[in-house]
């Protein structure tokens, strides 16, 4: 809602600086969004009278004008088609700075000296009109400062209105609030006492309301012999100041009153209404209308229309029709002031995708008592400004809503909710300040009757809020509630994710957060087949862009995009992870499945934060990512999770030779690998990328080994090396696994790989695997004999299981 301070002062007096006014409005719940000083620096623009116009000798479209300004004559070159002798116009003198930033200078235009510039409304920042120079109708004193003569200097305030305050969608509504806090009186332009009673019918025109539920009130009056023309400057200025375009006096008056009172009005060209009547009804099947904006609109049978006896002539409360528009040839005008059902207007406005100032007000709720007042104002202004002749009488069909307008308010409840010991008297005083009628019944119960314009006050709690608002929110003390101690709710799965996050941080990965939606294109980039479950997505019906049109089923594309972004910014050493939800449809359920996943990616240098001096050659490989997974599982004590080489079932975006699955009891809970070169290419990534992807919800459910203290061993350890030649396809990890599994005597403490080698001099088809064994007993110091025995036993076992021989 926009208004200017001079406009506001038309309805109430107050003695507040702009800053103070803005602060008080904000604290009253009318949040001031912007404050703009209008035309405060439009100097050196004067009113000039054009006395002579000649053609420019060297340019067809330019004129040489002689103007009268400040008692002297000046020559000005002008390109506007409407420049003519006798016209009063705005002349920017040399040195003037225009709102566009242009500084006017004396200069030669096509060889002719121009001592200033005649301005269009757009040049001056008054409107968007640039079709010609601004014309000042009537007589003016030439040489006067334009801003002063037109009273342009003003302050524009924009208030961000909450939907519960439809009464403040008008300057008078704002003025009422200002009057309440600044102590002034409200001066509405129409005295309630002079409003005539209207009948349900009229001899010159008919009104029928066929859908009373959608239209509780419809008033219409007729004015004749209207002189359509431009509005006087004061009226234009009001509209322009809040960004509305003046059209003609009749239309401008309806718009002005809408802004002034908050009551949208409509003016019909009466002679274009077929049958001279109005029917308020729902659209009939197949009906359409061309609205004022030139659009042909299809109507549905739930839409409320204002019709003449044949066809719709306006979309009720939203926009008029082109056919009955008031134009230069209009003679008689039928003025409509009505009240429509907010839900009906909102629905229609949505479906037609048509938001107007009128719809904005009706969908929030217009005071039904306002129609006759606004009608009276319209009649007055049309008579005064458009020489209209009022046809006596008029129609007002009104079905006031049933039920009591009074509410009961308990003092005890007010105290309880607000936490302050209000008295009945204090509450009454506060509410009365904004025209709310309060009757003190018994000191506890108050009977409260809100004024009709406060359509938002319907319940006791609405009144309690008003009490708090009028008291001033910042006059309440801060207290801390007395609440019994309780078992706080703990979300263990959430704590688990926090732990995972901390562990992955400790492994050197920065956390990323990506949008939950991705592009369907991403699935192609991941090489996923048509039948891939990843492609079973939940689509957004109204996405902002195609790139954000489906809910993600994998975190990988987002992170790969992040890598691309970083590489584009010359950051090539990357460790990123994300813990976030993926979404998949769940059959038979309204809401889909939301699963937390952990995905991490690494690429580039192994020690990115150390200077190349130390680790210059080292780049990450698959074992870095495997190491992260191992540490994670170890610290989460998920000992049941196994790594399995699973090249045959490798993911479409993974290199099959570098792919492993994480399984628990046969169930796959995650995977790791190297992103395939073709996928990388599609993401424009030219370096290797390794990834780990785990279903965190499944991982959370897996068994964890309890944290249990093991006594520290007091006896010395014995180390022995074991070097074997085994067939080349034997996994070294399997040998370690085997070594650690044969531990009946509990003498094997550790088995660590220290060399794996194939190639000469090792025999073809074999590889050499060297392991450092640690033996230790928790009961005594091991003798050589004991160690030899165990060492021999496990050596035999390895050779037996994998086939091979001891290395010489």
């Amino acid at each position, binding site marked *: 809602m926009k208004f200017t301070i001079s406009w506001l002062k038309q309805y109430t007096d107050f003695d507040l600086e702009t800053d103070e006014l*803005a602060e008080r409005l904000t604290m*009253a*719940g009318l949040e001031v969004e912007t404050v703009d000083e209008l035309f405060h620096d439009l100097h050196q623009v004067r009113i000039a009278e054009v006395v002579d116009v000649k053609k420019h000798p060297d340019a067809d479209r330019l004129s040489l004008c002689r103007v009268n300004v400040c008692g002297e004559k000046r020559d000005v070159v002008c390109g506007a088609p409407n420049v003519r002798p006798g016209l009063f116009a705005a002349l920017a003198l040399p040195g003037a700075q225009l709102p566009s930033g242009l500084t006017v200078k004396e200069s030669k235009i096509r060889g002719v000296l121009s001592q200033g510039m005649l301005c269009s409304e757009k040049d001056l920042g008054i409107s968007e009109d640039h079709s010609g120079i601004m014309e000042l109708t009537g007589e003016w004193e030439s040489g006067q400062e334009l801003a002063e003569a037109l009273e342009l200097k003003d302050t524009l305030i924009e208030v961000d209105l909450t*939907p519960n305050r439809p009464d403040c969608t008008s300057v008078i509504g704002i003025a009422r609030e200002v009057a309440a806090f600044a102590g002034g009186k409200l001066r509405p332009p129409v005295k309630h006492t002079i409003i005539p009673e209207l009948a349900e019918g009229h001899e010159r025109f008919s009104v029928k309301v066929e859908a009373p539920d959608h239209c509780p009130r419809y008033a219409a009056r007729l004015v004749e012999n209207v002189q359509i023309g431009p509005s006087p400057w004061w009226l234009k200025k009001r509209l322009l100041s809040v960004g509305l375009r003046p059209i003609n006096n009749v239309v401008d008056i309806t718009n002005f009153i809408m802004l002034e009172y908050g009551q949208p009005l409509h003016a019909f060209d009466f002679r274009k209404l077929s049958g001279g009547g109005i029917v308020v009804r729902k659209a009939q099947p197949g009906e359409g209308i061309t609205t004022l904006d030139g659009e042909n609109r299809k109507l549905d049978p739930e839409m409320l229309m204002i019709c003449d006896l044949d066809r719709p002539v306006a979309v009720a409360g939203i926009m008029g029709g082109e056919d009955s528009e008031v134009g230069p040839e209009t003679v008689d005008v039928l003025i409509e002031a009505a009240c429509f059902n907010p839900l009906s207007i909102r*629905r229609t406005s949505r479906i037609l995708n048509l938001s107007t100032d009128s719809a904005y007000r009706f*969908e*929030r709720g217009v005071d039904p008592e306002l129609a006759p007042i606004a009608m009276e104002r319209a009649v007055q202004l049309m008579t005064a400004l458009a020489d209209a002749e009022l046809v006596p009488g008029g129609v007002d069909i009104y079905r006031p809503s049933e039920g009591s307008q009074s509410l009961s308010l308990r003092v005890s409840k007010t105290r*309880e*909710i607000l*936490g302050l010991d209000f008295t009945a008297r204090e509450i009454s005083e506060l509410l009365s300040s904004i025209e709310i009628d309060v009757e003190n019944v018994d000191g506890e119960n108050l009977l409260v009757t809100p004024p009709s314009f406060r359509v938002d006050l319907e319940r006791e*709690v609405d009144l309690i*809020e008003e009490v*708090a608002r009028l008291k001033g*929110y910042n006059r*309440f003390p801060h*207290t*801390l*509630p*007395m*609440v*019994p101690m309780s078992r*706080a*709710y*703990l*979300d263990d799965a*959430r704590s688990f994710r*926090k732990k995972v*996050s901390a562990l992955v*941080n*400790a492994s*050197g990965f*920065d*956390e*990323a*957060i*990506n*949008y*939950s*939606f991705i592009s369907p294109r991403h699935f192609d980039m991941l090489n996923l087949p048509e039948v891939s479950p990843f492609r079973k997505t*939940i*689509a*957004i*019906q*109204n*996405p*902002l862009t195609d790139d954000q049109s489906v809910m993600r089923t994998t975190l990988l594309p987002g992170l790969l995009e*992040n890598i691309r*972004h*970083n590489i584009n*910014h010359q*950051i090539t050493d990357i460790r990123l992870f994300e813990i976030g939800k993926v*979404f998949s449809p769940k059959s038979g359920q*309204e*809401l*889909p499945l*939301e699963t937390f996943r952990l995905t991490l990616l690494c690429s580039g240098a192994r020690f990115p*934060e*150390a200077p190349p*001096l*130390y680790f210059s050659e080292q780049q990450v490989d698959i074992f870095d990512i495997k190491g992260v997974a191992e540490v994670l599982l170890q610290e989460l004590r998920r000992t049941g999770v196994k790594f399995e080489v699973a090249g045959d079932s490798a993911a479409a975006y993974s290199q099959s030779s570098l792919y492993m699955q994480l399984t628990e009891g046969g169930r796959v809970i995650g995977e790791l690998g190297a992103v395939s070169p073709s996928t990388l290419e599609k993401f424009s990534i030219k370096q290797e990328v390794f990834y780990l992807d785990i279903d965190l919800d499944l991982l959370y459910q897996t068994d964890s080994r309890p944290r249990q203290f093991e006594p520290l061993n007091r006896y010395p350890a014995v180390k022995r090396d074991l070097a074997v030649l085994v067939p080349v396809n034997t996994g070294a990890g399997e040998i370690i696994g085997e070594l650690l599994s044969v531990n009946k005597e509990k003498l094997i403490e550790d088995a660590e790989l220290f060399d794996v080698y194939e190639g000469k001099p090792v025999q073809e088809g074999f590889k050499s695997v060297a392991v450092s064994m640690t033996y230790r007993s928790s009961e005594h110091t091991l003798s050589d004999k004991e160690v030899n025995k165990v060492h021999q036993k496990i050596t035999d076992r390895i050779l037996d299981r994998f086939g091979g021989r001891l290395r010489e």
Partner: protein
Amino acid sequence: MEEELQSLTKEADQELEDVTDSAGLEAFRIKFLGRKSRFNSLMKELGNVPNEDRPRLGKLANQIKKELEKKYTGKKDELQNELQGGTTTEKVDLTLPGRRYPFGRPHPVTRTMDEICAIFESMGFGVAEGPDIETDFYNFEALNIPAHHPARDMHDTFYLGKSTLLRTHTSPMQARIMEQQEPPLRMIAPGKVYRCDSDVTHTPMFHQVEGFLVDKGISFTDLQGVLGVFIARIFDEETPIRARPSYFPFTEPSAEIDIGCVICRGEGCRVCGHSGWLEILGAGMIDPEVFRQVKYDPDQYSGFAFGLGVERIAMLKYGIDDIRLFYENDARFLRQF
């Protein structure tokens, strides 16, 4: 006497410099620090010094002795080090950078969210998360925002199906939790929320923390008190705070809580739109209609609820000027927090 002490020091420094092995060092010790050293004989002479000079000279002698001992120990360590094949201190360029191992950081949104949660948890609030994909019922209806309510304009909603959508706020958790549990309740619900809006100050996804407290006799002053504690903790004790009337269909009275601009300290700047105040969270007393939906008796219970934007707080705390940076995941950004 004084001159003698000074010259002795000079001589000792000179000799220590020339020492190259432990035998030399031992000879030095006997000569300068041993019982029969010249130093000791000088100390003995102190007794013959005039009374008025004695304290000053005594102090000086002690000081010189201490310095000598220190230099002697330093030389001893140096020789020891060389003997063990270690490098001498002069040979290491300690200005070389340290050897850093990879270390990752939480995202600034996570960091801020954890901080927010920790403050409320310290006041006894529990934490629960809800679904990102919500029903129209929990996102709107249960919060007193029926279809065609103008308040729906305040939510640019992404729709997924006829009655499913991406939650536009974390407030649905109020209804979800109250439906399941009886008061007293003290909960916060952090999470992602979505609005179809994108510019310098809006991203289509962002984070909120919802909070609410329900019991008998909870009042508007309690709301201001609890949020006052929160703001003092997340910013600082001196941060000015104000409440002003606002509107949310699921609270009444409703309030916006502003803090004094942390950038300009109330002077007025671009960030606060020259008002000196920053909107930081929305709050209010839970509307009786919401209680009715979850079958609480509004005459028996009252409570307050609040919702705050995590990115906004992170931006103010860290001075970040473009919300989109949070979702580019540029390492140069992530590594600053």
